[in-house]
């Protein structure tokens, strides 16, 4: 059942992405942005329902793996981008974020599901793991948004600096606004990610009997945390604009890259699912 609802959500995402991209191409038709926003809101609700159903069907197990993590992260990224659009009123962001969310969701909706629900051991069923999963997903979602905004900044900066005032020029918000939004998203993501790191350590102590085990997931998370922490600090010493945007992209590449590599190597990590 949850997968059907998720497919419905994917359809709504497709509609929202189409509306946003059309709005980006024809900014005169402001109604497209409104349509996109409503469809995105509907998709967010549908995906939320799907996640709830998934929890009932699989007893929450799917959220311990990468797949559930991606679903949750896309869901939270959507929620965060809805909040951002409410606060800043820059609907052109939707043209960058919504297709990204859709692309991340696609493998999940065509993949086969677990045949039978797995049983989650009691040791893992602690409040800390719930907080850990939610904060880690939200942190990654915020980093993803920041990366999207950084791409917008870099594209726009190239046009403004190169004196070629093309299509982007009239469609994107000012560089200053993008830079500031990027900074806020990085800062918020860093705070949330810190919570994920702390709760992750607590869970590791309970499940793995040690807070630090040189597990690749732990190492990469710490590196990512340090990088974003450095980014927050660098801001105060005058890192602005282009360099900040580039570092945001590096950070997000690290997030995506490390997860992909760790998951490609079987048995590299005990993180996520292998708690038997």
């Amino acid at each position: 059942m949850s997968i059907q609802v998720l497919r419905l959500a994917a359809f709504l995402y497709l509609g929202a992405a189409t509306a946003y991209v059309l709005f980006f191409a024809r900014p005169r038709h402001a109604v497209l942005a409104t349509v996109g926003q409503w469809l995105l809101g509907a998709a967010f609700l549908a995906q939320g329902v799907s996640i709830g159903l998934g929890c009932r069907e699989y007893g929450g197990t799917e959220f311990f793996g990468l797949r559930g993590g991606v679903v949750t992260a896309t869901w939270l990224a959507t929620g965060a981008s809805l909040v951002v659009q409410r606060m800043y009123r820059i609907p052109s962001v939707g043209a960058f974020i919504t297709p990204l969310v859709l692309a991340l969701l696609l493998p999940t909706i065509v993949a086969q599901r677990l045949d039978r629900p797995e049983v989650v051991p009691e040791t893992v069923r602690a409040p800390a793991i719930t907080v850990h999963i939610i904060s880690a997903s939200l942190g990654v979602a915020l980093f993803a948004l920041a990366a999207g905004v950084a791409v917008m900044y870099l594209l726009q900066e190239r046009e403004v600096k190169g004196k070629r005032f093309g299509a982007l020029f009239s469609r994107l918000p000012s560089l200053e606004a993008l830079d500031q939004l990027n900074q806020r998203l990085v800062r918020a993501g860093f705070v949330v990610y810190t919570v994920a790191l702390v709760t992750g350590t607590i869970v590791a102590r309970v499940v793995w009997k040690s807070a630090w085990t040189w597990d690749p997931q732990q190492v990469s998370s710490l590196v990512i945390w340090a990088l974003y922490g450095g980014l927050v600090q660098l801001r105060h010493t005058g890192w602005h604009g282009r360099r900040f945007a580039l570092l945001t992209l590096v950070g997000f590449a690290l997030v995506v890259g490390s997860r992909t590599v760790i998951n490609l190597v079987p048995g590299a990590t005990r993180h996520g699912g292998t708690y038997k």
Partner: protein
Amino acid sequence: MNRGREIHLVGLSHKSAPVAVRERVALSGDALKEALVALQVATGVGEAVVVSTCNRVEVYVYGEPAAAADAARRFFLDLAPEANGHLYERGGGEAVRHLFRVASSLDSMVVGEPQILGQVKEAYGLASAAQSAGAYFSRLCNRAFATAKRVRNETEIAKGAGSVSQVAVELVEKIFGDLRGRAVLLVGAGKMGALSAKALRDLGADRILVTNRSPERARALAQEIQGQPEPWESLTSLLALSDVVIVSTGAPTYVITPALLAPVMKVRRQRSVCFIDVAVPRNVDPALAGMSNVYAYDIDDLQRVVSQTHAARAGEAVRAEAIVEAEVMAFLAERESRAALPVLAAVRRRAEAIARAEAERTLSQVGGKLDEKGRRSVEAMAQAIVNKLLHGPTSRLKEAAASGDSSLPGAAAELFGVESESAENPPNERRPPGNDPEPPAAPEPRS
């Protein structure tokens, strides 16, 4: 019934008259209201609208052609006798076309500039308030606004920046968003720089700092644009606290160089800064563009954007003219078909009166032998004969009028002998309702 009344335009604009004349005849507020009332009285008309902006003053009157034109001409000559020779006049459809083109910004100095529509709306609003604009101008102006809206939506005539300082403002907006709480530094006392600084103040810049090699000129310019004079020696510290720097000195070399700016950027903590160099020869080293978070544009960059805009707008203007033409035609056709209505109404009134009289006569003779139902049948029959007889002439008259043929309505009036009757109803919007060929449209809501 409106035959004999026509729209007439007398005006002068940036194309026909120098500013010295334009400023003499430009009226606003109460003075303009008084003038409108005077125009209304002088024409014995009822309707007048005056569009008065810094680039044009145009008097549109609606009434007997000779009296109206005369009143409109006097409006100018009474204010400024030297306006004679700078005036242009348009009558009828030409005047309608002119108003549509003006509202659509096709007649503006910078084609496609967005302010003019608001100014025309304001002119109409003022005339409505002074009750000098009635049913005719209500329809005409609403059509003009609709035309302007179509032009803006269906063509790209209003796209892009039309002047150098507008380009500068757009660039700054693109980099910084709005300028609230930011400082603009004006280096040198060129006229172009002062213009741009003023434009940036309109964008919300709080502080405008002015510096110049000669302290007196800095002070004078600062006073002119309500800026703050600063000594030339503190240029580097001024650069450190300004976000937009407009450079227009007469110096033959680069005043702002990477070597000068590098330490400044450290002090600024790499906060973005934008240089706009409007000086010739250039005062800002183009190598600056290579520094991170530094944006530098020279006059050629800005000019290039302006000429791109103008080229694009010239292309769009052709499409806009076609829209205007279609709207003018539609307006005139609508008017013509309205002009046929009074003749039709008069013919129908007369026919119905005859039918009613004949029915009554018949009923008084044989009515006693008929019951209520029978009497109603006789009345209905008389009405039906009228309807059937007039159906053909009615539709043909409407067709002829809509295609601009005014001879047929005239012939019909003569044929049916209703000429005298229609002359009893002077075309005035204060007529009792029912005979009104032009129901007064609701005034345009002020936006």
